[in-house]
């Protein structure tokens, strides 16, 4: 049972890494908190559901489509709101409120369009029957979702560390003003990072029906809390730290569900507070504490 819990925890950890990654990338580059992250994830999930129900489209094809469309939406969305937001006195705080407004808009539109019934895609679409992994038996859908997550995380790592644009992105993450002063088009770099962050949320959404259960327009709030726990444990503003946070979160969640299931809901929040108090920068973090 312990082995089962740890192995499935790691598999879930990979998926939760993907859930937190986009949020963390956006915070790292722009120092704004995208509270609407969970709602973009929800939209990705609904897109996959409708593409599957109406056209029988496989989630893999839907994933590619969602990635492209969400990137194309996120990129201009940046220019629409972020530069103006950053003029304000306390942009980081106001971003919480601004994106809360956006999340309300998305949730309201989704409720008007889809209603409040729960929707899901059957797990057999991603493969039938369980498979063995390190002595544990898991549904195939979990394995496939984890694999896609791993590929996406790897692609983001390659982008950040092996491309010119990625290097520029990391420069903006370290110091926005100095990056601007050395001639980097910070707005363009940020807009692309914003688009990628939204696209990652959408991609995570495509696999949400298999990993998080059925979807409703208001699922974003819970997703956000989990995503926050993941990225705070990993360290806010460090995209690759997300992977570590995701693993720790996934394993602790599955251990809690196995041995102490009635208190499992407490876990993300307690973990968040404890890590913030003991280790405010996260496990792989930079200095952020003031006074």
């Amino acid at each position, binding site marked *: 049972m312990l082995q089962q819990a740890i192995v499935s925890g790691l598999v879930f950890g990979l998926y939760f890494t993907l859930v937190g990654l986009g949020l963390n990338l956006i915070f790292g580059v722009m120092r704004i908190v995208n509270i609407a992250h969970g709602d973009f994830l929800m939209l990705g999930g609904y897109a996959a559901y409708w593409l599957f129900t109406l056209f029988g489209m496989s989630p893999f094809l839907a994933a590619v489509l969602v990635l492209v469309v969400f990137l194309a939406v996120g990129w201009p969305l940046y220019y629409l709101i972020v530069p103006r937001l950053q003029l304000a006195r306390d942009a980081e705080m106001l971003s919480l409120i601004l994106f809360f*407004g956006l999340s309300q808009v998305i949730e309201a539109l989704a409720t008007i369009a889809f209603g409040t019934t729960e929707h899901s895609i059957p797990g057999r679409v991603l493969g039938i029957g369980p498979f063995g992994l390190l002595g544990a038996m898991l549904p195939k859908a979990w394995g496939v979702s984890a694999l896609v997550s791993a590929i996406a995380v790897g692609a983001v790592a390659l982008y950040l560390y092996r491309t010119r644009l990625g290097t520029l992105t990391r420069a903006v993450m370290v110091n926005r003003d100095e990056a601007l002063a050395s001639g980097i088009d910070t707005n363009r770099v940020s807009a692309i990072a914003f688009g990628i962050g939204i696209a990652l949320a959408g991609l995570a959404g495509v696999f949400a029906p298999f990993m998080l259960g059925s979807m409703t327009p208001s699922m974003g709030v819970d997703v956000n809390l989990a995503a926050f726990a993941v990225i705070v444990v990993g360290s806010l503003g460090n995209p690759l730290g997300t992977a570590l946070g995701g693993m720790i979160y996934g394993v602790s969640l599955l251990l809690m569900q196995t041995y102490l299931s009635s208190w499992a809901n407490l876990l993300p929040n307690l973990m968040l507070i404890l890590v913030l108090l003991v280790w405010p920068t996260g496990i792989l973090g930079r200095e952020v504490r003031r006074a």
Partner: protein
Amino acid sequence: MPDRAEPPRAGIASSPMRARGWRDLAFAGAPLVVLAAIAPALYGNQLLLFNFVTFLALAQGLNVIYGFTGYLPFGYVGFFGAGAYGFAITVMDFHLGPGAGMAVAAAASVVLGMILSPLLRLSGAYFAIASLAAAQALYDIVSNPALDDVTKGPYGVSLSSVFAPDLSYNVAVGIFAFATLLVIWLRNARFGLALRAMRDDPVSAAMAGFPIVRGRTIAWLLSALIAGLAGGAYAWHISVFYPETAFDISFSIFAVVFTLFGGAATLLGPVCGVVLLYGLYNAIGITVPQYFQLIYGLLIMALVLFLPDGLASLLTRRGIRVP
């Protein structure tokens, strides 16, 4: 920034500041409280008026911590819920009267504020998220079926034995009066000025000799106290409620948006926010919630992008002082 126009004042508490405080009290604070107190005689729906007064108190309580220190507690509802359940447990499990219940509500929120005060070491978004997580964690504990014997878990509490709508309404008005006095004091005393200095530049404020850790802890506990008292009065007035009502995140969000909409760190700003936006909510929000949610979301976005300092800044920008 409404306050930057005011000249910096010397070390001694100057009498113009004090005179201004009395003026704010006489012409803005006192009339509002009197209006809230006599409102039930003018309008029949006491529950609606009670909700207005609760939000007025909560918005001013949030104003104390957000407006004056810049800390944005997304989990402000945690104190409200702690107060509501402090009241409920006193009345339900210990069979004491509502007076003892209110005292426990106040104590519960202040103790919770002390437990959470290390969160003030965090800055910016970290603090906001951590306080939200704290409120969620408290909700998960209170609503857990394992604690059925103490909190009635997710099944909700019923306090019909102490039900007293008129008295509890007046207590809520009293809490609003307390919050109003507190904001007037903070706006016109050295302590509040020092808090705002700390908000704008903590390092300089510390170098000028203001004990910043003690200052913001005091503001934090006062803000928690107001929410806890409001929660106690809410439990008393509503009488039957569930953990998800007392810990509804909307309380935090509404309080934040109302405060921001009118203008943080002013007395009248949060009041305008509550009257206009909560009025709008009651006009259209109850019949068609998703359309209200849509309008509300768009309004919040427009507000942050085009009027980040609230309605009050429309006047202060032209050099008119808003109490």
